[in-house]
């Protein structure tokens, strides 16, 4: 598998640049390595630091009318909430969305990169790239960086000639096609609500409400998820943002405060 070294090319002189025709003689990519006594240990630590940090809840599912994509917006660094307003649904192009879970920079950069590749494909082939193709391009790139500490757990959702498409792609190089996915630390909670309420024949409104509630429930129980629940819909004409509701407000929508019956009431006693 040829490594995508386009990000590592140095301003080396053209003379001596490897020719593709001289098979197998390409120069290995090189970059600065930190000065530590134990580089392998350092690398392992770095990977461990990034690994558990998929503190988020994202979900996507295919239904009759298209694909529904939803995510929370909290970014956490350990116990510190660093932001409540992170855009975790990335717009790759007008008809394809990607979700962010894991390293924010990794997700953002590689989704932008995927957007570039999709556009180049369109220009070269005079047709849009399929969701299958786009997810495969991303999966191949992530696979070539396997073991180097990238942390990406993303879902590529879109609408192409064959209809709605949904793929889960991660930094281990895995790629799965499916109808329902949820990724992140809040995903077990989201799955509970999503799997319970899912039907293929839902209307857009019902599906949006299901997606919203699933994210809300995940943010309720998972400390690493919160902020705003964004819901996007991908249909035959591309994606559209349906809503972005603060999950705190959603809580009181779903569970409005009722005056509760008091078991024992303190009664004013006149006199003693």
């Amino acid at each position, binding site marked *: 598998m040829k490594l995508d070294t386009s990000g590592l090319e140095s301003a080396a002189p053209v*003379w001596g640049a490897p020719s593709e*025709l001289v098979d197998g003689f390409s120069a290995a990519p090189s970059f600065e390595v930190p000065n530590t006594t134990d580089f392998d240990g350092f690398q392992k630590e770095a990977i461990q630091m990034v690994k558990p940090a998929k503190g988020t809840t994202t979900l996507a599912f295919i239904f009759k009318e298209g694909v529904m994509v939803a995510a929370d917006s909290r970014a956490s660094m350990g116990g510190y909430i660093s932001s409540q307003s992170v855009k975790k649904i990335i717009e790759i192009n007008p008809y394809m969305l990607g979700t962010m879970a894991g390293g924010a920079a990794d997700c953002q950069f590689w989704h932008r990169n995927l957007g570039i590749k999709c556009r180049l494909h369109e220009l070269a082939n005079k047709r849009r790239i399929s969701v299958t193709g786009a997810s495969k391009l991303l999966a191949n790139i992530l696979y070539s960086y396997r073991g180097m500490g990238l942390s990406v757990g993303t879902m590529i959702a879109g609408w192409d000639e064959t209809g709605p498409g949904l793929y889960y792609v991660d930094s281990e190089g895995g790629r799965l096609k499916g109808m329902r996915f949820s990724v992140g630390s809040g995903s077990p909670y989201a799955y509970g609500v999503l799997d319970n309420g899912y039907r293929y024949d839902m209307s857009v409104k019902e599906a949006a409400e299901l997606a919203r509630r699933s994210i809300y429930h995940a943010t309720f129980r998972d400390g690493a998820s919160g902020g705003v629940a964004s819901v996007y819909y991908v249909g035959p004409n591309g994606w559209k943002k349906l809503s972005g509701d603060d999950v705190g407000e959603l809580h009181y929508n779903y569970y409005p405060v009722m005056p509760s019956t008091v078991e024992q009431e303190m009664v004013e006693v006149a006199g003693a």
Partner: protein
Amino acid sequence: MARYDRAITVFSPDGHLFQVEYALEAVRKGNAAVGVRGTDNVVLGVEKKSAAKLQDSRSARKIVSLDNHVALACAGLKADARVLINRARIECQSHRLTVEDPVTVEYITRYIAGLQQKYTQSGGVRPFGLSTLIVGFDPYSGVPSLYQTDPSGTFSAWKANATGRNSNSMREFLEKNYKETSGQETVKLAICALLEVVESGGKTIEVAVMTKEHGLRQLEEAEIDAIVAEIEAEKVAAEAAKKAPAAPKET
């Protein structure tokens, strides 16, 4: 390590790339090849040099498939053709692997042409000495296509084209006689064009038809002979009709 960075294909003072033009000469000496696009099929035909008695003619196929839905015929250096065809076949599969879709004819043509161009602008190599005729069906729209590439790396789509020996006469014939055809008519047209420059017979012509349903099908010698006989008969009839004046009206 030997120095491979000195270019062989360089500009002449009046803007020619002589190596590329010499490569085109090599193509002109190669066997004739013709391609005709019909509405529901595409036909490739090549001239077969009379096989040596001991040679197994089946091992020297000149029309090859690059994938289930794309085929190629070429004129020029056959050894160069083998290399180019292998690279194209790998690219067809690589495309299937990376985007889970078969190549379009235009894509693989662009790839082959790109390869041919690369070898006109690299150190230590010479251009490929062949022009190719690439046919196939678009996997999405089902539309048949015919493309041609040449040693300079240019490519374009054609309704019908010829390359190799006497390609000019074949192209003239096609320009005069081309019309939208389908099925057997397209095969006939291709063979007619080839017969302009080749001695007739199933022994000297190789023909293959690409259809959407059945992919590439090489025609048997007997089939080709039958069609050639048909064409000959039609020609004779046409000649006779021309010579004999119209029958006088019966009064």
